[in-house]
């Protein structure tokens, strides 16, 4: 039996770097190639030596597919393609291809900025890697090779995020990447065909959570910023180059407009310009509302948000500043944090997860005294808030997607083991399908139905169509009758005449016969005539003949009458029919067993 194997190298029962190997129909595919920000050595990347020890991944992998631009999904890509060695195709959507190098470059700069960083990819490597990327359009089937095809679907989550349907022959897998089933301020909700894949590999970050609507979190965020501004404080929001930052900018911009606020909002390092460029370029990927209003007013042209200069940090009075990087581990955001940390009126809002060792991690855990370089200690008096705005499907959303795609099996990744276990139970109960949750390095194996390709002769197809059938449509499977023959290792469905001709065989007729006894006190020819009359009245619309050779024929069924030697009233009827008239033959035998009605002449 054919099998599909799924082995996570990352994201198996954890929310780390995603990297999932799928082997389907003899093809090997890597889904996402993420990085773990928590390490500063090779452990930040998936260990590709599990795939091959000789470092030549091209020999093994048929393609790599990246779901979206977040670093835990694409951060290891240049390392894999340029440092380990992969020369094959990499697929991602157009927006991901445009934005991914910006984030990789941003992260490279943050990383090499640190002391003692070695073995990290260079700008040139990022570029060379991006040159290997083949862009995908939504809903367009891309043929990777003769047998392997992929198709991307809208996933929400971030600009350009996609789910992908992978198909080899009749086997298929859907990988969701990160997705969101409810539309948000600038992105729509995920959607997929009822494609009935053998496996649906879904993220499960919020497997047990029914998330409060994003609106609530946004309201909460605005309230906190507003309060801080009102009391004359400064608000720092550390962000990564692109993505969440734009979302929050739109939020603040509209709020400032509505409330007629005057406090300045700054965005550091000129990123808005670049981000706006991409959001404009990929307007079709945003949600309907943004697309509609785009003609009158561009949502991404901010009136209130201005470029930041480092001297502004010392200006008196309230302000809001977006600064990179997102975990407060270097650069501008850290510099501003150090300046503002001592004042309890100020606030820092961490809009995302922070890894161990970063200032962001420390303050979120409640550390209030931070050791700084030069033996100085920093007293953290400002207010620290954590607000996750990331758009993942919650338990309800995941179930909704299963209903949409109708998979035969389910496989959970990108979530915590305990939470997955809960969702797994729920899925198995509600949909009666198997749900897998392999740990990293473990392989989930699913057997699929074997697919046997068969050629159909043109004449048979034409005949079927002549019988009123519609044109063949792969989406609407239906039954066809014919003779299956095997010739030169291939199977063919042909008409029986053609089969006989091709195989050089003669036709054999197969007839069924049966005896029916009945009492009828008449001569044999009379009885036969009575039968003829009876059938004439019962079987309207059939060809019934009384033949001179002493037989009655109904279609191909022959009926003869003979008397028993002992009792001339006991008649024996002989019925014989060909296999085509099997139904009619058995009907007649049953009918005649009941005897002939008395009123017949």
């Amino acid at each position, binding site marked *: 039996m054919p099998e599909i194997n799924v082995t996570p190298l990352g994201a198996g029962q954890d929310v780390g770097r995603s990297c999932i190997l799928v082997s389907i129909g003899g093809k090997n595919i890597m889904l996402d190639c993420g990085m773990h920000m928590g390490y500063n050595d090779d452990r930040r990347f998936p260990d590709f030596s599990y795939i091959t020890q000789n470092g030549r991944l091209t020999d093994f992998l048929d393609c790599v597919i990246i779901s979206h631009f977040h670093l835990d*999904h694409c951060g290891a890509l240049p390392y894999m393609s340029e440092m380990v060695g992969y020369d094959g195709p990499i697929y991602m959507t157009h927006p991901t291809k445009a934005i991914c190098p910006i984030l990789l470059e941003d992260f490279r700069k943050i990383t090499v900025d640190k002391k003692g960083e070695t073995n990290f990819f260079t700008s040139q490597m990022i570029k060379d890697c991006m040159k290997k990327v083949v862009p995908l359009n939504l809903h367009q089937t891309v043929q990777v090779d003769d047998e392997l095809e992929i198709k991307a679907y809208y996933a929400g989550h971030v600009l350009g995020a996609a789910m992908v349907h992978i198909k080899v022959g009749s086997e298929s897998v859907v990988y969701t990447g990160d997705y969101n089933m409810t539309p948000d301020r600038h992105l729509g909700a995920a959607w997929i065909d009822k494609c009935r894949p053998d496996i649906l590999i879904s993220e499960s970050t919020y497997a047990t959570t029914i998330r409060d609507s994003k609106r609530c979190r946004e309201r909460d965020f605005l309230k906190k910023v507003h309060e801080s501004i009102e009391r004359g404080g400064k608000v720092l929001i550390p962000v990564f180059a692109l993505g969440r930052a734009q979302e929050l900018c739109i939020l603040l911009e509209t709020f400032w407009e509505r409330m007629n606020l005057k406090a300045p909002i700054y965005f550091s390092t000129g990123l808005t310009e670049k981000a706006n460029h991409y959001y404009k370029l990929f307007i079709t990927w945003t949600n309907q509302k943004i697309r509609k209003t785009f003609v009158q007013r561009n949502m991404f042209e901010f009136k209130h948000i201005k470029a930041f200069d480092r001297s502004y940090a010392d200006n008196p009075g309230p302000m809001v500043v977006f600064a990179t990087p997102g975990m407060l581990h270097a650069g501008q955001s850290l510099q501003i944090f150090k300046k503002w940390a001592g004042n309890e009126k100020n606030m820092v809002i961490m809009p995302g997860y922070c890894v161990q060792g970063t200032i962001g991690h420390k303050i979120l855990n*409640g550390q209030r005294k931070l050791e700084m370089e030069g033996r100085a200690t920093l007293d953290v008096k400002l207010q620290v808030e954590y607000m996750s705005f990331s758009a993942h499907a919650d338990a309800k959303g995941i179930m909704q997607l299963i209903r949409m795609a109708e998979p035969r099996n389910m496989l959970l990744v990108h979530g915590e083991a305990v939470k997955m276990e809960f969702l797994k139970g729920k899925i198995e109960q509600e949909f009666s399908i198997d749900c897998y949750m392999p740990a990293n390095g*473990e392989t989930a194996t699913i057997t699929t139905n074997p697919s046997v390709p068969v050629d159909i002769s043109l004449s048979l197809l034409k005949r079927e169509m002549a019988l009123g059938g519609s044109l063949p449509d792969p989406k609407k499977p239906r039954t066809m009758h014919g003779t299956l023959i095997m010739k030169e290792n291939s199977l063919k469905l042909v008409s029986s005449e053609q089969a006989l001709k091709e195989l050089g065989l003669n036709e054999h007729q197969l007839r069924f016969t049966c005896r029916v006894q009945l009492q009828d006190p008449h001569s044999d020819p009379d009885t036969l005539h009575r039968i003829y009359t009876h059938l004439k009245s019962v079987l309207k619309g059939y060809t019934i003949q009384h033949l001179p050779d002493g037989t009655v024929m109904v279609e191909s069924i022959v009926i003869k009458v003979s008397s028993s030697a002992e009792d001339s009233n006991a008649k024996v009827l002989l019925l014989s029919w060909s296999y085509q008239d099997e139904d009619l033959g058995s009907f007649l035998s049953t009918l005649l067993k009941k005897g002939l009605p008395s009123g017949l002449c």
Partner: protein
Amino acid sequence: MDRECVSLLPRVCEVLAASGSSLPDDTSLEKLLDWFTEVTKAGTSLLESCPCLLEFISSVVHNTTLDPSILSFTLRLSGLVAVTEDAFTVLQQSSVLDLVFNLQHWQEAGLWEDPCIRIGWIQGLRTMMQHPKALGFFVQADFLKPLLQLQTDKSLFVASAANQMLAHVLLSCQSVSSVESNGVDEEGEDVGRSSGSIADLEYPAITVETNQDYAAVVTAISECLKKSLVPRKNSQLHQSLQILKLLALLLAQTRAPLWEKLLQMVADSVYELLAAGYSQLVLPLMDVILAAHSDLVHTAQSARVLLLPLDIITGLNLLTTTADEQQFSMVEQLKNKTSCISMICVCLTNTPQITLTAADCLPCPPVLIVTAVLSLLRLCSGDFSSSSSSSSSCRDVSRNIIGSSKVQKCALEALIALSGSPGVEVKLPEVVTLLVQYLDNPHSDPTVLHKSYQALVRWMSVCSDLSSITDQHRQDLLQVATKRSCDIRWEVRDSTVEFLGRLAGVSVVQTTAEEVSDASVALLGGCCFTTPLLRAALQDPESYVRASAISALAQTLAASWQQGAALTQEHTEIVNQLLEVLSRDTEGFARRAVVRYFIAWLSSRSSHSSPPPLASSSLLMPSVRSVLSRGSADLDWEVKVHTLELAELLLHEAFSGQRGYMKGNPTQTHPYAVIPDTLHTRTHNEEDVVGELNSLVQWGVVSALLSGLVDCDRPVALRACRLLMTLREVVCPLSLGALDATAAMAMVAKVTCELPGCGWAREIRKMLATKAKDAERGCSVGEVVDCDDCGEAGQEAASGGGQTPCVSVCEVLRSLDLDERLDVLTRSSDHVHNSPFSLLQDILTASSAHSQPDTQQEVIVDCY
């Protein structure tokens, strides 16, 4: 070990031993082990310095309700602790060791199912196996059996760790046995060294009994290899795969006599596998063959195996004789498209390696292999005209590779690698013709085009004699480069632009007059063709292409800079375009490339002492000034670092040879280091210093350095700080002090620079003001210092005011506490946050935050 850390460790152990759930950060335990490993490597005994660890291990192994990640950590930690014989003995005596590695203990607790426990068990054992006692423990406990089972574990990570461990055991046993059997210590050390991982092994006297045990282990492993290599049923394929991986690992690491013994033992099975043709096993099998190819017999054999597919597809007689049977089975395998492509690729990837082996092992000369690769490339693009394969089945096979960009890329890679083989130069015209065809082919994939360009550059640089290149070649290449530079795909445009630049960097000999020129001139006619193309590429919508165009321009114009060519209208226009890019371009790549362009220009000019008055370089200095001011205000810190590099060049040019001037990092240069003579060629006097300093101020070097110093990005600040210290050593060394100043020094002190109202200058003014206040406070205490001048700089600066204030460069340099700043910058914030102390602290605070969920908001790990 840090005393602060030692004091925190007992509490951390307590927290870990009591936590029922995993830590919120999954990296903490890994990092903790890293730290312990580091400490152990430094020669510190973990048990001695942290006695709490023994208690921790023993309490954790008894508490099987703990989170598996903590149990796994403890297994690994135990192995690390027991890495020395003494600690091993302590652990054994306290009967902790037996329980830690007792399989049954974990199985009964139902924990063995968890892959992280199995992996912890293997890794713990492996770390520990550095001394004979541990090896004895392993043998006596009969761990080999479960280990062999784990080799086919359902978890890839466990299986791989088991494989590594088996290799480690085999190598350890082997070295022990060889010590014993040879009775020569040296031999044992030699084997130990060869395997790397057990380099520290030094086995003392071993009893005959244990030696027999080791021999039994070696035999058991090799028996297993032999037995399980060939799968008897399909379900055993996975096992074969694992055995092949182990074999490749062993053959790469072992040496005689084990190496030979292994090879002898498995040779038949390997051939059987080869003949069986399992498509899933082709790649690992090739790895084994390659690992085995280090001896001559096998080299010849593996060369034949590897060249066979190429021989069949191209029909070129690479192998003079081949057994019909072998040929037939290979043709059958190649008929399947998927396996054909993968076989050909493996063959092509390893072909260059084959040509490196001794000529007498090669079945054919390298030039024939190049011919075969070229022929294959033609087949890929559907050109069967040159194919000499006769049989129809071979033609069927060839059809499998038509249009396969995977094969094309592998073949082009092979062509690149083969360029250096002896005797292949004669193929140059054929190679160029084919590559130009590839570049011209509208169906070529962008990645194939990229590789074709690379191959072309490579062959040009290896075959420096271009006499065989015809005018037709040149014309075709010109056409195709022009066409591709306007390709619709940015990837192709970028590869083309990169190619034009690289070609300019390759020097070749042309037909006539043996004149040396660059390949760009020889092939494309040089600047007059490339420069307009590159200038057009400066307007490219894709920033990558713009950046490549700028670098390529620098490479193309390098020759004219060195020759001191005359200033042309074109030069002026290019410079203006580049300055425009620097101030307007939204992408860092392009802006970085601009600064690098000027660095290249400036350094090539420096090699010329006096440029002719109307040379292109007369444009250089004014533009450098703009580059410095724009570059140091850039948003990208790498542009700023490059700008500082430019500043450094100017600094070097101004002061090389001057007393006190040290190129590079002043703190790293040894005070008695010999300074190269070239640095002393120019002698300066104080007037020169004044003049040079004035020019540096005017060019904006000093402003660039000062703005860099207060930058929030560490690399910028660090570099600026070092350069400022260099400058200070030359113009106003601290050692002289203000009172020692000669008249000339007083002149130097009068050189001032502006501190405008923008961000960085405000920051500098503030620093000066603070310093001035400190100094005043110092005065009030009664020190007799003439504060007139030193106060002036600060006061003036701090006052700000309407006019841009000027400050003395010397005063600024002296007042900025550069040494202290350098100290802080060198250590960086990472030093604080990546330290073991920070880690321990994070574990403690995370656990206390975790235990009071009400007061703390839940931080969900999601994405970044």
